């Protein structure tokens, strides 16, 4: 499981990094989204990978065997903040496109 | 509170397995059809296998499983069934109509015409 998860994180990071280095604003926003998925999974994975041990207390489970709730709480916060910033970046890229007339991150049409 | 699965009565286990697999297999067939059917309008039909029987079978399996397992009447899965049944058509309808519009706009001869003005746009 760890192997799969870490490979998945790696692939998403790679794609995200590639995208944020691209010149189009839309590519950047997709890249940021992918990166935040990767980072969320990373934080999540840091607590160790446990299947079917959700940190929800019930009478018959030993608390210590449950999954680590702290990374989950952190990821939850990170998701929310990621959502907010994605929305913001989106609007900024729209505004920038409106003002500069193109969707290049530097506001110019580049002759590649 | 949950019955260990080894203590399940055999009939229940078999019923769960049958419904589950039936649903799963129909879903799979549906997606295979979705992959293989040649035109969009034909492909539109395939996933409904999953939304109808796939969901249904799985729901039933789950209801049986949990009802037997907890020895209480647990049927809240039915909600999933209801919602899927009610909401999926919206997507399909809207999408089919959109596809129709796009095909017509492109002048595709395969689709029934109500001659709309031609012009091309692919927001894709």
């Amino acid at each position, binding site marked *: 499981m760890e192997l799969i998860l870490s490979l998945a994180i790696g692939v998403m990071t790679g794609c995200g990094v590639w995208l944020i280095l691209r010149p189009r604003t839309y590519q950047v926003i997709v890249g940021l989204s992918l990166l935040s998925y990767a980072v969320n999974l990373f934080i999540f994975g840091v607590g160790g990978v446990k299947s079917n041990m959700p940190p929800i207390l019930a009478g018959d489970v030993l608390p210590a065997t449950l999954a680590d709730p702290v990374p989950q709480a952190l990821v939850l916060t990170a998701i929310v903040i990621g959502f907010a910033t994605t929305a913001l970046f989106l609007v900024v890229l729209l505004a920038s496109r409106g003002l500069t007339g193109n969707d290049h991150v530097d506001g110019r049409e580049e002759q590649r | 509170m949950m019955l260990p699965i080894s203590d399940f009565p055999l009939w229940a286990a078999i019923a769960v397995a049958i419904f589950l697999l039936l649903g799963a297999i129909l879903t799979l067939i549906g997606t295979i059809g979705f992959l293989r059917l*040649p035109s969009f*309008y*034909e492909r539109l*039909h*395939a996933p409904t296998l999953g939304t*109808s029987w796939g969901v249904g079978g799985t729901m039933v399996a789950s209801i049986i499983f949990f009802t037997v397992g907890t020895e209480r009447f647990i049927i*809240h899965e039915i909600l999933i069934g209801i919602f899927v049944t009610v909401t999926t058509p919206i997507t399909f*309808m809207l999408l089919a109509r959109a596809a129709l519009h796009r095909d017509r706009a492109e002048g595709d001869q395969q689709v029934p015409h109500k001659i709309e003005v031609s012009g091309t746009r692919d927001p894709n």
Partner: protein
Amino acid sequence: MLPFPILTFCLMMMWMLLNGFTLGHLILGSLVGFAAGWALASLRPEKPRLKKWYLLPKLAAIVVVDIFRSNFSVARLIVMGKKRPNSSGFILLPVQTENPFALAVLAVILTSTPGSAWLEYDSRNKTVLLHVLDLIDRDEWVAMIKNRYEVLLLEIFE
């Protein structure tokens, strides 16, 4: 006071399905259902008039059976793959009702049933464009839909 009693009841049922059937949740569910009913009222939707609501189970039963059947037929078609005759096609289905609820239910039924898909409704001509996967006889399809569903729907909603 209670804009949508049936809805409120359904929401209460939903609440209890989710939370469990206790007295507390009955009260809570009713409150929530009541509030949600008012929320819907603020949208000012057309009120459905259910004339013969007792026919609904009959419709449901028919639909379940149809879905069951068509599931297998479509599955068969898919499994057959290339060997099957290319028999799909479009049908223009004239509908009598203009009641949006009846149309909605019809749409749900037709879309949920594998093998038929609702493409377009034309309010001027009162027609629905359908796409059918296994179209052997257009008229038979039209007749089937009219007889099996529309008649019932007209009875329920008009």
